[in-house]
């Protein structure tokens, strides 16, 4: 059984016990325990069920590479699924539950799948659930979804906060093992600004467990003094619990700092996402031990050899009393030595190699541990945990030679450098056949903006598995990185490491070498996604020869651990099946993040009211307090209508329209874009920007203008006012202010840069209120100030002056068809001006109106709306706006395009009004049906609805639409489809439904 040993683990504080629960069971651990070590200390070997076959699974590893130990953590507002037990620190009150089982971890009905596994090979889902087609959506998927899946999605809002931080450094070092520390020291000494991040809560990586000598002292002492030295350097920043998550273009990197996961009651953000820009990045990310592939290698109690000794050394936890070590390299012998020193039994070391020699072998022999050379494991015995192993000849097919009782198997298939971050941004790898590993090719590093490499790699991540070369490599990388970042101060000395002599590894990809299908189909490669040796072989046999295809077909390496343990083993099996060399098969693509990071850390502060910027006008606060039912217009929120007690939206809209037509309406038009265009060539410039002539507009007058893109399509419209001889004010649509400003700057900066024109966006300088209706003039007169009479300020003119006590610019323009003034005041006076209009307007029946009333009134008048009548394919001619296309001008944006054959084609869909025969409101976007079918067998169409409303003024539905040759077909009745499949008949009419002569606005 797994239990706590008498020896004290390095990382735990046995004076401080903490209690936590696992599946409701109350358990105790110590401060410093991971959830994995604490569970093992309580003999909780079983931590979850596998994804596909629901096999019982235990902890395999001791770090971020753990594939099995994923649990639901927390409750309610702190609930989070898929948390790794090996990287979760226990704290008082932690609650964890296991995943992917029903009804319980111990008795899971899904485990039947394991008995059906021969019927569920790779690609099973693809093959089985293809037909009949509709069954996938309605039958297969719902059932599969129910029985599969890892953690549950949280139901409550996350109570924690998160943030980003932008850091710019000379050298980012990922990994705080001995190589990373040496690199940081070398770079720091040279004066570089250094950020060193380590995903674990402690410095030193593996060296502090295996305790080699560095600079004449044990590794842990060297680590301690080096960290102290780094802490004293002002230019070096050290971060624990901070994982280098991804490396991107031009030295961009993400690091994921877990600030309070281990102390959930602490203040401050839970996670911080570091958005790093580094001149150089050193990946000192270490190496991960590979499992060996033998039958039932997934039973709880089969662990990586290094993990077994981590639990003993770091946490004082023994996984089992009797551990069989199975290996193909010397490093695993360390586990046997550590176990023996802890007073535990090691009945045998099963070594696939036929010859071994070296310091570690000698030590093991001296301890009297039995070594079985040339042997392998035929099968691990046991149900929910290991009870023994059956030995066989590695060279054979699995005939059992002997069974050894044990409760733990420590396996080592060699080590794979963690090359993920090196590879994220294009770093290439070489296959090192001697060490049986992929390692970074320094000649093919990821390159940055200057074309030179910006990522270096160091230590075991660089394939240097021994202490001496790892620390010196780290130091050299730190020095080189600092130099590349412009810091070449001399000095310092590389640390010296001392290693035990080790013999070579012998690659073993399958145990035994000639394993039968029965054994291969129980030899797991990917524990998390339940992929076995036989699955990869099947994929190869079925023609999935590319490693990327085989990966997707089998799902090898596609689980949340991204194949940290399985990729190389799977690749080797694939290459053997294809009879190809490993480097010729290649690796799958490594993609960030290295291990999953929280979604919330990606969002940072962008949640709730900070989710996105909401733009406010000076009137917004009043509107929100007075019934505004807002609609988004870009990032603005504009009142759609102001709803009063007892009204629904439609009633409010109808009331607002009628009131503006009969009394007095106020519209907050502050969001309309306002661009000042000034300079000697401003008139000439605007003549290019607009389809109509703006250079001839007299000072003091306004003109409605259209803007087209170079390909002739309408992009914006608005009223242009001439301010002075060399200055124009251009109004844009609400969504157009920034876009049109950029568009103007684009042409000025990149095409006509010799023209003397400046543009300024003054949109937000003004609150702009439309005062609309028969009583508009009365309320302005009551407020007093400038002369707003028809004579002093006729239609389509503007003037500066005072309205009441307000500094005002008054435009006599109308988008409603009523007598209307649009009045701009400085935004700081905007709210007060709005109140003043409401006060003064009370006796004239004033009511604010929203965007829907605005839309209805303009539609009643047949005015187009950018975004309704236009969609990026509509030209002015389609909207009968030929009058706005200047014939006098030789050129304007879009003019050339209008003469392209399709644009000049008279057979286009053109704007008309539409009235249903029954007075109903046409569905928005409905198509007019034409005879026959097109080449795809779809019904032909002859037009579509672009705007449609109930008109409170006319008391029936009105619509505008684009209809084939529409203006030539006045009076014709055409049919429109409806969503329910029926149709509605509508007559083609003039699009101006109300006051065609303009008598109401021009008074």
């Amino acid at each position, binding site marked *: 059984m797994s239990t706590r040993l008498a020896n004290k683990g390095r990382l735990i504080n046995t004076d401080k016990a903490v209690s936590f629960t696992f599946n409701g069971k109350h358990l105790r651990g110590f401060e410093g325990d991971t959830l994995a070590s604490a569970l093992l200390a309580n003999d909780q070997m079983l931590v979850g069920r596998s994804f596909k076959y629901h096999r019982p699974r235990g902890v395999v590893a001791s770090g971020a590479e753990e594939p099995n130990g994923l649990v639901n953590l927390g409750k309610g507002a702190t609930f989070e699924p898929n948390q790794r037990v090996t990287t979760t620190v226990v704290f008082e009150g932690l609650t964890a539950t296991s995943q992917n089982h029903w009804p319980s971890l111990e008795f899971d009905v899904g485990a039947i799948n394991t008995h059906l596994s021969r019927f569920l090979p790779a690609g099973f889902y693809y093959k089985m659930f293809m037909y009949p087609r509709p069954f996938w959506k309605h039958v297969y998927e719902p059932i599969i979804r129910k029985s599969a899946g890892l953690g549950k999605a949280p139901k409550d809002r996350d109570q924690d906060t998160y943030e980003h931080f932008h850091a710019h450094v000379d050298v980012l070092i990922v990994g705080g093992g001995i190589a990373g520390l040496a690199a940081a020291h070398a770079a720091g000494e040279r004066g570089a600004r250094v950020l060193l991040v380590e995903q674990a809560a402690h410095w030193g990586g593996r060296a502090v467990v295996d305790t080699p000598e560095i600079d004449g002292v044990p590794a842990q002492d060297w680590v301690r003094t080096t960290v102290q030295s780094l802490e004293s350097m002002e230019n070096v920043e050290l971060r624990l619990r901070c994982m280098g998550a991804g490396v991107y*273009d*031009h030295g961009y990197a993400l690091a994921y700092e877990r600030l309070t996961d281990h102390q959930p009651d602490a203040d401050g953000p839970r996670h911080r996402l570091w958005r790093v820009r580094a001149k150089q990045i050193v990946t000192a990310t270490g190496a991960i031990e590979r499992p060996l592939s033998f039958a039932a290698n997934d039973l709880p109690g089969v662990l990586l050899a290094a993990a077994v000794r981590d639990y003993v050394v770091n946490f004082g936890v023994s996984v089992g009393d009797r551990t069989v070590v199975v290996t193909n390299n010397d490093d695993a012998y360390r586990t046997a030595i550590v176990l023996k020193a802890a007073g535990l039994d090691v009945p045998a070391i099963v070594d696939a190699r036929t010859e071994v020699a070296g310091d570690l072998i000698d030590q093991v022999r001296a301890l009297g541990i039995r070594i079985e050379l040339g042997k392998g494991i035929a099968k691990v015995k046991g149900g929910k945990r290991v009870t023994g192993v059956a030995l066989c000849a590695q060279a054979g097919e699995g005939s059992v030679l002997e069974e050894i009782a044990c409760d733990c198997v420590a396996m080592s298939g060699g080590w794979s450098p963690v090359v993920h971050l090196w590879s994220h941004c294009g770093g290439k790898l070489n296959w090192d056949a001697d060490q049986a590993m992929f390692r970074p090719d320094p000649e093919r590093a990821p390159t940055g903006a*200057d*074309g030179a490499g910006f990522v270096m790699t160091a230590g075991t991540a660089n394939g240097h598995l021994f202490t001496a070369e790892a620390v010196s490599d780290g130091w050299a990388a730190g020095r080189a990185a600092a130099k590349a970042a412009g810091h070449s101060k001399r000095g310092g000395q590389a640390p010296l490491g001392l290693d035990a002599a080790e013999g070579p590894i012998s690659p073993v990809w399958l145990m035994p070498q000639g394993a039968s299908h029965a054994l291969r189909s129980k030899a797991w490669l990917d524990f998390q996604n339940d992929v076995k040796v036989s699955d990869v072989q099947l994929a190869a046999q079925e023609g999935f020869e590319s490693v990327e295809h085989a990966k997707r077909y089998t799902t090898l390496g596609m689980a949340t651990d991204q194949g940290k343990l399985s990729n190389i083993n799977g690749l080797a099996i694939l290459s053997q099946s294809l009879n190809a060399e490993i480097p010729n098969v290649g690796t799958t693509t490594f993609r960030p993040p290295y291990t999953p990071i929280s979604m919330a850390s990606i969002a940072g502060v962008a949640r709730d009211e900070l989710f996105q910027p909401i733009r406010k006008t000076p009137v917004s606060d009043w509107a929100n307090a007075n019934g505004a039912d807002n609609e988004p217009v870009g990032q603005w929120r504009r009142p759609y209508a102001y709803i009063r007690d007892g009204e629904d939206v439609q009633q409010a809209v109808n009331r607002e329209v009628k009131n503006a037509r009969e009394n007095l309406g106020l519209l907050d038009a502050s969001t309309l874009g306002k661009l000042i265009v000034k300079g000697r060539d401003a008139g000439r410039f605007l003549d290019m920007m607009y389809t109509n002539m703006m250079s001839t507009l007299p000072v003091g007058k306004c003109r409605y203008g259209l803007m087209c893109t170079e390909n002739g399509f309408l992009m914006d419209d608005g009223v242009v006012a001439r301010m002075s001889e060399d200055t124009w004010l251009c109004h844009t649509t609400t969504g157009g202010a920034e876009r049109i400003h950029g568009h103007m700057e684009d042409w000025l900066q*990149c095409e006509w840069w010799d023209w003397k024109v400046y543009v300024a966006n003054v949109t937000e300088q003004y609150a702009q209120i439309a005062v609309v209706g028969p009583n508009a003039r009365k309320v302005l007169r009551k407020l007093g100030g400038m002369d707003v009479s028809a004579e002093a300020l006729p239609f389509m003119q503007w003037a500066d002056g005072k309205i009441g006590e307000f500094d005002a610019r008054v435009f006599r323009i109308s988008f409603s068809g009523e007598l209307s003034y649009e009045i701009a005041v400085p935004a700081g006076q905007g709210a007060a001006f709005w109140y003043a209009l409401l006060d003064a307007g009370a006796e004239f029946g004033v009511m604010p109106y929203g965007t829907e009333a605005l839309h209805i009134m303009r539609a009643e008048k047949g005015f187009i709306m950018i975004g309704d009548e236009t969609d990026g394919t509509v030209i002015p001619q389609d909207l009968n706006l030929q009058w706005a296309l200047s014939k006098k001008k030789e050129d304007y944006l879009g*003019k050339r395009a209008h003469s392209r*054959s399709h644009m000049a084609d008279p057979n286009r869909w053109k704007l008309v009004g539409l009235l249903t025969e029954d007075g109903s409101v046409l569905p928005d976007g409905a198509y007019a049906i034409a005879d026959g079918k097109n080449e795809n067998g779809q019904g032909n169409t002859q037009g579509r609805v672009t705007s449609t409303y109930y008109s409170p003024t006319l008391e029936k539905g009105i619509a505008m639409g684009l209809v084939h040759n529409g203006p030539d077909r006045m009076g014709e009745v055409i049919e429109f489809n409806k969503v329910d499949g029926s149709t509605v008949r509508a007559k083609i009419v003039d699009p101006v439904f109300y006051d065609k002569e303009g008598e109401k606005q021009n008074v």
Partner: protein
Amino acid sequence: MLTLRCPYCGVDADETDLHGEGQAHLKREGPGSSDEDFEDYLFMRENPKGVHFERWRHAYGCGKYFHAARCTSTLQVFGTYSAQTLEPPQDIKDKISGARPGWS
């Protein structure tokens, strides 16, 4: 995530401060141009794997448009330069020739 130096304000701008504006050095075709030339100008864009000249705008910064010479494959930046020019400056062309002999 690119970093490009804005030639107008000298800032090494993060890509999130910038806005891509498409291919550089297009020659505008106006009224009177042939259908073919006009089509070329409107629609026919290069999409090379390798050296490319682009327009960018320092949208969150000084608001200026500028040009960048960049390798679309390695993201090497050969230089950024003024928008008020009809072709890349010689020093940038030389730099590209040094890094990508035979480019065109």
